[in-house]
């Protein structure tokens, strides 16, 4: 390849939330090469296998090229004008017939801030707060739990700040597979002598490097953390000064901890008491301790409780607001933090303004040029599917999500989507969900449009346009602008570019006030809160005070509650689910990438040797995994890395979420993907 003609453009990796950068090489309108961007502040050039394959989906032969309309069992090609007009008319008809709450919208953590901002703006102008996205399925409990305790539902310290920690407590995160570049900074901390302890039901690659492993039972996190706090409080290892000046609620926590018995914690969690004690002492007595978590904490009916427990642990020991001391929920998508910040959630407007907050809601309405916005909390992702199945939801507009693979209990989701009057899917590929749609709209992907993306550490980075979209595909922001105009809100969508939209965001969301189109384009962007144009950004939150109204950290005692499903005679094993390093979410991108699919080609279930032997199952054999919701056939991997009684399946392939539970956390409405009672037998096929 002649490299002389290549124009190298700094770009943001489109996969997980770490926010790595690379150089995309453009030659005559095509993306032809990728090079490592050593100057990038987070990744220093490093990329995981998915990042290395980021270009493979861009000019992919499967890309959607034209708007499609369902005709019988198939689709026919239609013009953009016809598609937009018919969809707009049907949405207005449904609103007329059934009211605005018969409509729902799914935004996307794969799309830019500007696009998510527009999607929630359009939904609310049309008259409903039923706009949500996959954050509901991954870190909704983090947003809720940290919002309540610290007043800001986001990671407190940058990923790179891990090097400043003396003790790193990882619970329910397998960052070595899910956020590999985070392992760079943890590794550096370990070489400087930091202590790494990992709580996980499985011996994941993250555990390989741990000094202490707490192999807990799925769903026992609150019990474990309460046990740790009991040891800390009783041993006098609390940070009294921090508690006195910066927190409230310790007394209520003390009362709860008096009812906690370590022997019970041991029994519930399966972790021996001396290991819990060792973990508690390391965490409390280190100069600076950090807690990292992901879906192992959040995807439970106690997800919010789990997060609040971790906040409690940090608050009583004062491990917040300093370099190396913080709470680090590692987020899974390139813009899931941003989609939340933009208010693509059914309970909050941009800037986390509650939809029920009369005054601030009115302020946003005024900025949008309307007098009022819908006041009732809308439907969340899983509630949308329930409402679709029960006939209360008539229209669902999906931007870049694939619920038929990624939502829990997908047979129920399928019933809902089959039942609905209007399903519109706007995506880059014909996903499993798009196959069910009435209209399929071809969208541009990250390289074919510009916009800002907010990484897990609140870092807002700009992705410039690199190449033109294929066929007639359009950037999501253009499609939504057009839908907004055609549904009667032309004045609210005057935007000619993503920069115009970001300029409006600057005025609506205070934390993004100084993240202007001009400033955000610098390499590495800016970290919010960045309230004005002179502000340098805020890498570490809560240094002086917390984001709560009184500025204090609210210690919020959380008693242990068991998972929604416990093993029984019919379903004696506990199924837990998670990610693989070579795949990404519903797999619509990575299962189309040869370099990744060839290394991890099919769905499997990890099972312990004891459980396999009991069922006469050999390694590599086809088995049937069943829960009360359905069954899936896949290959058995007999491994020493799961404890007896626990089995694991990755969720990147169709099939896993036939099995998972849609029981919800009462606050965050996140489903309990991480615990399902199941049985495994040899496949009858």
């Amino acid at each position: 390849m002649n490299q002389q003609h290549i124009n190298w453009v700094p770009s943001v990796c489109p996969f997980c939330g770490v926010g790595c950068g690379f150089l995309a090489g453009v030659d005559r309108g095509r993306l032809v090469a990728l090079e490592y961007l050593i100057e990038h502040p987070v990744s220093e050039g490093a990329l995981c296998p998915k990042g290395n394959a980021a270009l493979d989906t861009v000019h992919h032969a499967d890309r959607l090229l034209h708007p499609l309309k369902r005709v019988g069992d198939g689709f026919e090609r239609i013009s953009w004008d016809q598609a937009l007009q018919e969809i707009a008319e049907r949405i207005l008809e449904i609103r007329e017939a059934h009211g605005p709450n018969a409509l729902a919208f799914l935004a996307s953590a794969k799309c830019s801030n500007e696009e998510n901002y527009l999607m929630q703006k359009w939904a609310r102008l049309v008259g409903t707060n039923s706009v949500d996205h996959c954050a509901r399925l991954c870190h909704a409990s983090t947003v809720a739990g940290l919002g309540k305790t610290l007043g800001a539902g986001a990671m407190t310290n940058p990923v790179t700040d891990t090097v400043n920690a003396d003790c790193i407590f990882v619970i329910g995160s397998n960052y070595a597979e899910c956020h590999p570049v985070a392992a760079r900074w943890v590794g550096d901390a370990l070489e400087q002598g930091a202590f790494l302890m990992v709580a996980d039901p499985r011996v994941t690659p993250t555990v390989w490097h741990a000094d202490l492993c707490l192999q807990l039972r799925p769903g026992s996190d609150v019990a474990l953390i309460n046990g740790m706090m009991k040891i800390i409080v009783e041993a006098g290892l609390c940070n009294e000064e921090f508690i006195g000046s910066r927190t409230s609620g310790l007394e209520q926590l003390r009362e709860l901890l008096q009812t906690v018995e370590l022997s019970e914690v041991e029994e519930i969690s399966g972790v021996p008491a001396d290991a819990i004690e060792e973990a508690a002492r390391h965490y409390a007595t280190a100069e600076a301790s950090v807690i990292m978590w992901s879906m192992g904490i959040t995807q439970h009916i106690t997800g919010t409780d789990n997060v609040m427990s971790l906040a409690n642990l940090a608050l009583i020991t004062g491990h917040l607001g300093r370099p190396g001391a913080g709470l680090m929920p590692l987020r899974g998508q390139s813009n899931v933090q941003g989609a939340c910040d933009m208010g693509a959630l059914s309970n909050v407007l941009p800037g986390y303004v509650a939809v029920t907050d009369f005054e601030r809601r009115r302020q946003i309405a005024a900025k949008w040029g309307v007098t009022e916005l819908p006041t009732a909390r809308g439907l969340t992702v899983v509630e949308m599917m329930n409402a679709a199945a029960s006939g209360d939801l008539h229209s669902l507009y999906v931007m870049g999500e694939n619920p038929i693979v990624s939502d829990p209990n997908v047979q129920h989701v399928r019933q809902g989507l089959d039942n609905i009057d209007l399903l519109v899917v706007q995506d880059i590929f014909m996903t499993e969900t798009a196959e069910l749609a009435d209209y399929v709209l071809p969208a541009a992907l990250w390289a074919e449009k510009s916009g800002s993306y907010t990484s897990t550490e609140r870092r807002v980075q700009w992705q410039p346009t690199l190449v033109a979209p294929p066929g007639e595909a359009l950037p999501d922001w253009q499609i939504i602008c057009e839908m907004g105009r055609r549904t009667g809100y032309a004045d609210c969508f005057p935007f000619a570019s993503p920069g115009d939209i970001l300029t409006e965001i600057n005025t609506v969301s205070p934390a993004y006030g100084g993240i202007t189109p001009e400033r955000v384009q610098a390499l590495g962007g800016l970290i919010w809160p960045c309230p004005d144009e002179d502000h340098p950004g805020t890498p570490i939150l809560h240094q002086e005070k917390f984001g709560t109204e009184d500025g204090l950290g609210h210690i919020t005692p959380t008693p242990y509650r068991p998972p929604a499903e416990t093993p029984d005679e019919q379903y004696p094993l506990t199924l837990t689910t998670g990610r693989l390093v070579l795949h990404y979410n519903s797999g619509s991108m990575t299962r189309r990438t040869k370099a990744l699919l060839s290394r991890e080609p099919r769905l499997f279930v990890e099972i312990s040797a004891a459980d396999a032997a009991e069922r006469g199952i050999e390694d590599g054999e086809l088995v049937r995994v069943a829960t009360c919701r359905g069954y899936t056939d896949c290959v058995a991997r007999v491994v020493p890395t799961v404890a007896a009684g626990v089995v694991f399946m990755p969720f990147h392939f169709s099939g896993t979420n036939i099995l998972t539970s849609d029981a919800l956390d009462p606050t965050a409405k996140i489903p309990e993907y991480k615990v399902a009672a199941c049985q495994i037998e040899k496949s009858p096929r």
Partner: protein
Amino acid sequence: MNVLYLDLNRCIYCRACEVACEREHGGVSRIFVTLLDWTEPVPVACRHCEKHPCVEACPVDAIEVTDEGAVIIHTNKCISCGLCVIACPFGVIELDKAGKIADKCDLCAHRLADGRQPACVLTCPTRCIQYGEFEEIMARARAKPGLTLVSAVGETGTVVTMPDRPAGAVQKATSGSD
């Protein structure tokens, strides 16, 4: 003299190096990460040995040691005899799919030529694979706590360290919970 350095303690079996190598070399990776006992990953590629049995074995002098210490196969000279494949102590030389031409890691010669480090080095999320001056690498390797120096092959070849731990991670992890 520049050398490769593998710090096995930092490998997370993400296989980014494989995908990067494959991307850099027309769809064929020359580095392979093997997972032993489900918990011990080992990236294996040409070690660019100081004593290079492949060079000795080649009957047509198709394998050259460059001034930078890289052991390079000149594929246009290869006669597909396969002797280097047999000679290699690490098993990292393979004949291509057609069974014709011997192929292995060339240390990304095309990248080194314009001042860029090998792809596997730059992409490695954890700094498990490094490349640099021998003395500097050795100083780095010696400074790491709890690591055993497995190989440091003269002033060429590959420096390797591995974790100095008595039992595998699985035992360490599960011994407590039984």
